[in-house]
């Protein structure tokens, strides 16, 4: 039985799948970005010098710099890992565990009772 012209065979799909490196770079960078958000938030809260540095927008206060720097860290990490891994197959499991651990850590570190421990 012949397949319809628009169907993609499993073999063709296998060829079309991009290497896992691109996905690994994206998830690890997201974990790193989330973690930096928490670290910058704590640093901006506890260190007066950084509080001034993070005040990119006066009406918003240090939150403007904390979030902007975290987004920049996320995008830089993504660009670096994407450049390194985009054509490679990377073992996803350890990268995934690291990314999820960083994400959970960032959720915990942004929770004020935990933030206040520092």
């Amino acid at each position: 039985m012949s397949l319809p012209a628009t169907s993609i065979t499993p073999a063709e799909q296998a060829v079309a799948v991009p290497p896992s490196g691109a996905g690994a770079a994206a998830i690890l960078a997201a974990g790193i970005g989330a973690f930096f958000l928490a670290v910058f938030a704590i640093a901006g809260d506890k260190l007066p010098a950084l509080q001034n540095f993070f005040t990119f927008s006066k009406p918003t206060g240090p939150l403007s710099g904390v979030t902007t720097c975290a987004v920049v860290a996320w995008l830089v990490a993504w660009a670096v890992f994407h450049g390194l891994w985009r054509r490679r197959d990377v073992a996803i499991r350890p990268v995934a565990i690291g990314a999820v651990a960083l994400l959970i850590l960032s959720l915990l570190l942004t929770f004020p009772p935990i933030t206040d421990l520092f």
Partner: protein
Amino acid sequence: MAALLAQTDNQPGTRDERFLRVYLTAMAVLAWAAVLTGTYVIYPWYRATPPPGTTKLGAFPQRLLLASPTTSARHSIGMEWKEHVAWLAPLSITMSTVVFFQYGRNLRRDAPLRSTVLCFTLVSFLAAGIAGFFGAMPVEHAPVEGGPTLHMVYGE
């Protein structure tokens, strides 16, 4: 999304995949719009500093909450968590969207990558939920409607 990416023999249709792409893109755009307007439009109103000698703090929510020990925790826990955790939502959902655009239905073949994308998507919903709850209930609604005591649930 989980159903579409589930490792079953049922092949998801192209329409389902297209729907998920549109859905995730819309979620990512809305998440960025929410945190940017929240941070740069709404939040400055919340943290506005009253002129010296101001006694009526109704127009200065942060100062109003901090003025009383019965409401200060709404700022020190609710708002301080909300203002940061909300940013995890656009970051996570953007990553999920890009990965889904890159791999599409092939994500079904890579269990760790699929699970991680789903995990980040769930965390983005959780972060949005935390931010929405703490923003709308204890911080913004309560000072206006609830007085000094926060009523989470009313009995009959």
